[in-house]
């Protein structure tokens, strides 16, 4: 029983990471109906920036992380303002393959700048862990979970308690009405994509500390984010958390009780079941699922 509880807890911690990662993907999709296939590569950019800052400039992680977020924020803003805004009237499919092309370009850039070597930051948190109710919690995972929760709260606050948040929500519901009420829609789109980028940057910083990364490693993050968002429901921040945690727990339990080779498949099977039974996701709002699909 202890073992199962530990595995579930690990799954929750992992799920926090998944949720954090999914937020950036979700906000861009929810507001602009754009599935960003280059998302994983943006996470990688965040990881590389973090590594540069920590290993080559010698900054502590607490500073490197916001730096990575800033770098990807700016990258995101530039991309949206400069390129993606031109796709506003295009078909959904075309936008998809545009981000696909963007992903290829970003991978190559990362390759050129950083080579294909697999990298990771030397253990920032060490092996230390603390215990809660007899279950062990490594500091590294706890920190990731804490950062993820902080970002979620921050995003929630931004969207619901600030004028920018109102502008973003308004634009997402009806760009024309938003334009008519004086909102600078291209700027709002750019900011939204930039926020998604910043979240990717933070995720990348976390990846650098606990996992390893390389230019090609971004793909799996894009897919995971996609799954978590659909699972939890588009347009819902609590949904991203629930989706992420559920996925983490289910994956870990599947690895524990079934053949570990089925881990990802079980996650996807869960996704399929949820989609068939409740197409808008666990906490998705009807409006989003139908209009934005």
């Amino acid at each position, binding site marked *: 029983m202890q073992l199962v509880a530990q*595995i579930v807890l690990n799954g929750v911690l992992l799920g926090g990471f998944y949720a954090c990662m999914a937020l950036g993907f979700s906000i861009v999709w929810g507001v602009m109906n754009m599935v960003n296939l280059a998302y994983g590569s943006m996470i990688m950019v965040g990881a590389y920036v973090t590594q540069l800052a920590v290993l080559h400039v010698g900054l502590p992680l607490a500073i490197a992380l916001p730096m990575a977020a800033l770098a990807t924020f700016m990258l995101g803003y530039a991309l949206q303002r400069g390129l993606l805004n031109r796709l506003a009237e295009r078909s959904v499919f075309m936008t998809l393959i545009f981000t696909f092309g963007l992903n290829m370009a970003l991978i190559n850039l990362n390759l050129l700048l950083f080579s*294909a070597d697999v990298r990771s930051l030397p253990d920032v948190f060490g092996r230390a862990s603390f215990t809660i109710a007899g279950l062990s919690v490594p500091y*590294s995972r706890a920190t990731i979970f804490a950062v993820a929760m902080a970002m979620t709260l921050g995003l929630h606050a931004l969207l619901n308690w600030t004028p920018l948040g109102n502008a973003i929500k308004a634009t997402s519901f009806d760009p024309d009405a938003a334009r008519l009420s004086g909102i600078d829609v291209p700027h709002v789109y750019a900011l939204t994509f930039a926020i998604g980028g910043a979240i990717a940057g933070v995720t990348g910083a976390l990846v650098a500390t606990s*996992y390893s990364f390389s230019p090609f490693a971004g793909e799996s993050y894009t897919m995971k984010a996609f799954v978590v968002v659909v699972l939890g429901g588009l347009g819902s921040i609590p949904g991203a958390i629930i989706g992420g945690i559920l996925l983490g727990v289910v994956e*870990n339990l599947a690895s524990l009780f079934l053949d570990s080779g089925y881990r990802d498949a079980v996650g996807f099977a869960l996704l399929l079941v949820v989609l068939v039974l409740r197409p808008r996701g666990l906490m998705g709002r009807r409006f989003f699922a139908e209009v934005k699909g």
Partner: protein
Amino acid sequence: MNSSSRRHLVAGGLSILLGLSTIMPAVAQDMIRFGTALSLTGNLATEGKLVREGYDFFVKTVNERGGIDVAGKKYKVEIVYYDDESNVNTSVKLYEKLISEDKVKFLLGPYGSGITIAVSNLTEQHKLPLVIAHGAASTIYNRGYKYIFGVLNSIDDYTYNMVKMASEQKLTRLALLNENQLFAQLGIDGAARQAKELGVEVVYKEKYSSGTKDLSPELEKMKAAKPDMIIAGGYTNDMILLARQISQVGLKPKLLGYLLGPTLPGFVKSLGADAELTLEPVQWSINVPYKDQFFDWTARGYADAFQKVYGHVPDYHPIQSTAALQVYYNAFQKVGGFDPQKVRDAIAATDIVTAYGPIRFNDKGQNIAKSMSVVQIQDGKPAVVYPADVAETKLKLNP
């Protein structure tokens, strides 16, 4: 002439030039051409660079001496390289190009077992020799092909030494974990078989999906089985995560071995103390006691000469590449010519000693004369600990 016909003339001229540039000369009279596809970009680019350095080093060495002496005439060598980005379809396509367009008759294997299997199908059908330096899967060699030859030890030998070490150290409980892909799966399945032969009990054996971000379920299950030795296989990404999580979960095996990982750049750097005392089987180390019969190198001599050119000490990748070319070198001299069929037969009868090790092929094309050694990371550096005749230092167990 008027501008239109001038344009036509220029266009015509350019087309002819373009056409000429795409026709490679047939094998030039004093040049031997080899061909291979490498992972120069793509996610195995680091290994690909090492592979290429080994080939280039051979070319440089031989050409500096005036070339290979075949039947009294000296031939310089060159290698046609293409980048396959570690992609199976691309690699096969490029080998077809080497054979059909570039008219290369003597091929060197690509990097990676899966790709090698696909490429060997092509070369076998073309009845051209393929000397493999970087494909260890046993499934490459058990199809009865006549034109493929691997200078390296195949996957079964990777784990044999480590399992033997376990039994010699009286460790009786072995845990096995591998990534669900070709190389790692074959390796770990081999380890399980060898454990059975050597009387070591396999208390845990599972595979995990590529790219898993949390191996704690597997490791908790493993911990419950109380292993005293762990052997794990996968690519570097996962091995770093594994090493971290093994200590986080509180697993303390007496010995921990990886199919690959510890000697690649970045592993020790990323893991620090968690990399200490990990084991890895290596195809070659700088201490092996062989003297090259062609070039007067010892293993150390090769490493020194290599370092002078490339600025770093070679791991086993470059010398493996060099060894493959030495097989051809020997074959050309024995045949006194370049007929592919005769060269193939000469390769099959190879019996040489190189700085990489002795090379002699069985009828499956595997090199049965050489053995592997095992290194252990001690103080952040790999040191050979097994077998005894090549060990630099003693094996240390985890407390």
